[in-house]
């Protein structure tokens, strides 16, 4: 085990340095007062120029949130969060209330995204990918809007959708993740600032990949994004989100809510590459990523597929789920969760089978190194109405070094006799033999570990859209140099 120990140590030495996105953009900000009360909620709503119904919705959520307690069942440990010591809104002053045309965006912001590898000018962009760029609490730019509008696809900041498409928002917002779903979702409902709204009309295959790039920049500030994606009957959309944040000693809260609605025959493919700042090698700093993501396969034959590559954050608490309501609907969850140093991840999915002949598939790859704890927590629930439901779950854990932990917590509820549920789980280590073999063939230690772990994750990496698969593979490599062994 000596070689592995050394790798882990070497990797730990490099951690923090290897996080390339840790810079801060020096830009003048407008913030809400520190802390949270009715006025904070009103302030955010006013900043967004929201209609009265939205404000009321938020205030009700805030009312409910005050009666709720923070969940403590996850296998994560962190000091108590002082919710009155956070800024709930921060936006670059130059942005004003609404996102402008690209030409009007503050060059400092454009520079920031360029540094992050997300050039926002359309001619320089990855062909075929439209981007919504969210900086702290506001969307600063959305690209390719005109081209998408031609196809009838709405792709805009949610704050804009609330103003411009109130009927659609009213019809779907909070219908997948109810306002009172859980502590963090309720908090989000009260103070969410920006996020992405997507509507794909009936029978339309979205002509390009849609993506949102979330950036936390301001200190002491929480980011509360809200994303709502609706795929109308027979439509298809593929969406990807990426996230980064500066290196700071403090912990910052990111409490997002994502709702997906797939109507009859529609398909939504939702991919995440989460690379929030993970904290340093001592476990200092990093993002608390407390996120509620859920998709509703509302119509017959609809399909929702979640793919996530989680490499960042000090703590990840996240269970992208599918409600398989429509008959013959399909839910998929493909996950890679990498934790190193003192990172903690408690992540998995819920597959709720309600309709007949519903099928779900779960592949989870957890990689732990350093002193990290990595938990897969998943629920497969087959309701009495779900005749002939099928599930296949595969959970694989890979341990690097002797001080980390991997845990698998599957919950299975079958209330219909025709259900077929399969669960497979494995735990393995990178062996000295594998490492030596790679070294002998000339592959240096860190590259060898990256190669072996990428192999371990192959089934999931293959699920990512082509444009991002290579990036994700590199990220796994970098995390292996910098956040994993």
């Amino acid at each position, binding site marked *: 085990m*000596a*070689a592995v120990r*050394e790798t882990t140590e070497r990797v730990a030495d490099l951690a923090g340095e290897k996080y390339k996105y840790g810079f801060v953009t020096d830009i003048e900000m407008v913030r809400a007062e520190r802390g949270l009360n009715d006025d904070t909620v009103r302030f955010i709503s006013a900043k967004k120029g929201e209609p009265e119904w939205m404000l009321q919705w938020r205030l009700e959520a805030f009312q409910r949130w005050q009666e709720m307690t923070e969940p403590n069942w996850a296998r994560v440990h962190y000091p108590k969060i002082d919710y009155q010591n956070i800024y709930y809104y921060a936006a670059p002053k130059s942005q004003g209330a609404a996102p402008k045309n690209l030409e009007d965006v503050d060059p400092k912001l454009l520079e920031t995204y360029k540094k992050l590898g997300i050039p926002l000018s359309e001619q320089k962009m990855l062909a075929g990918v439209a981007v919504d760029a969210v900086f702290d609490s506001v969307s600063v730019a959305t690209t390719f809007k005109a081209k998408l509008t031609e196809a009838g696809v709405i792709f805009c900041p949610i704050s804009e959708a609330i103003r411009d498409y109130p009927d659609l928002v009213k019809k779907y917002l909070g219908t997948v993740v109810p306002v009172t779903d859980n502590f963090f979702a309720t908090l989000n409902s009260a103070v969410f600032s920006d996020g992405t709204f997507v509507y794909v009309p009936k029978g339309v295959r979205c002509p390009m990949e849609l993506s949102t790039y979330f950036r936390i920049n301001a200190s002491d500030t929480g980011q509360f994004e809200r994303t709502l994606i609706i795929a109308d009957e027979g439509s298809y959309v593929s969406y990807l989100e990426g996230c980064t944040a500066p290196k700071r000693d403090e912990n910052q809260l990111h409490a997002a809510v994502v709702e997906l609605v797939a109507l009859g025959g529609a398909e939504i493919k939702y991919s995440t590459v989460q690379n929030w700042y993970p904290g340093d090698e001592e476990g200092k700093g990093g993002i608390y990523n407390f996120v509620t993501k859920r998709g509703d396969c509302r119509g017959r034959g609809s399909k929702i597929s979640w793919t996530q590559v989680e490499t960042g954050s000090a703590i990840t608490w996240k269970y992208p789920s599918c409600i398989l309501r429509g008959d013959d609907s399909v839910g998929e969850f493909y996950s890679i969760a990498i934790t190193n140093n003192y990172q903690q991840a408690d992540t998995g999915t819920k597959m709720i089978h309600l309709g007949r002949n519903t099928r779900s598939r779960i592949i989870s790859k957890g990689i732990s190194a350093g002193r990290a704890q990595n938990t897969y927590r998943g629920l497969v629930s087959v309701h009495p109405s779900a005749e002939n439901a099928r599930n296949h779950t595969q959970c694989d854990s890979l341990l690097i070094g002797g001080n980390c932990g991997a845990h698998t917590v599957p919950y299975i509820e079958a209330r219909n006799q025709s259900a077929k549920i399969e669960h497979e789980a494995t735990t393995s280590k990178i*062996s*000295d*033999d*594998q490492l*030596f*073999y*790679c*070294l*002998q*063939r*000339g*592959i*240096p*230690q860190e*590259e060898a570990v990256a*190669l*072996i772990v*990428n*192999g*371990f*994750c*192959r*089934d999931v990496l293959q699920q990512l859209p082509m444009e991002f698969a290579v990036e994700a593979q590199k990220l796994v490599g970098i995390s292996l140099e910098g956040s994993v062994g």
Partner: protein
Amino acid sequence: MNMLEIDNLHVTVQGKEILKGITLSIPAGEVHAVMGPNGSGKSTLSYTLAGREGYEVTGGHIYYKGEDLVPLSPDARAAKGVFLALQYPVEIPGVVTLTFLKTALNAQRRARGEPELDAMRTLRLVREKATALKINEDMLRRPLNAGFSGGEKKRMEILQMALFEPTLAILDETDSGLDIDALKLVAEGVNALRSPSRAMLVITHYQRLLSYIVPDRVHVLAGGRIVKSGGADLALELEKSGYEGVEAA
């Protein structure tokens, strides 16, 4: 010039001395065999030459092309042209063989300051070498060694040897677990790589392999020492008398 020069080499594994003063030289262009009974230190010798962690050189020297090998890491040795075909090639699940070959080839090239090969050129190179070893496209697209038969694994080792073109190739019990057809195929692959600029060290328990890969010299390893050296006939002699006779001598 001697490609490999081992001088009074002592090696300790987990606190126990396994090699107790080995002296052995292989000139460029020659193939030497090291034979010996189980536990004589054959595998220790091969791992030590490759630089595996845990094989501690407590005395003596290893010179490769006149350079001291001992301080170099295994990957640095590989980039300089030291290749070890393992007795038990390791499975690497999920890593497609071609990807592995390209990664290794380019890592070596990078270490030597040579330009990396792109996917197309690598593929062409691999295909060219694979045909002779009857390694088909399907095998190259499968994860490395995962689910390969014993023969396939050994052929894959020889393919890598052909691809990396080492100047010092060590073959550790490459014959173990092979039937006669597979053995012939592997031996042909090895013989095709014999060259005036390359030295080979073939480590084996049995004479069988040496009927197909005929060595220039044979050394008998017993109890961590070379107890006898001779020409190719020595292997045949051993086949008749067994190791006991030699050890006693």
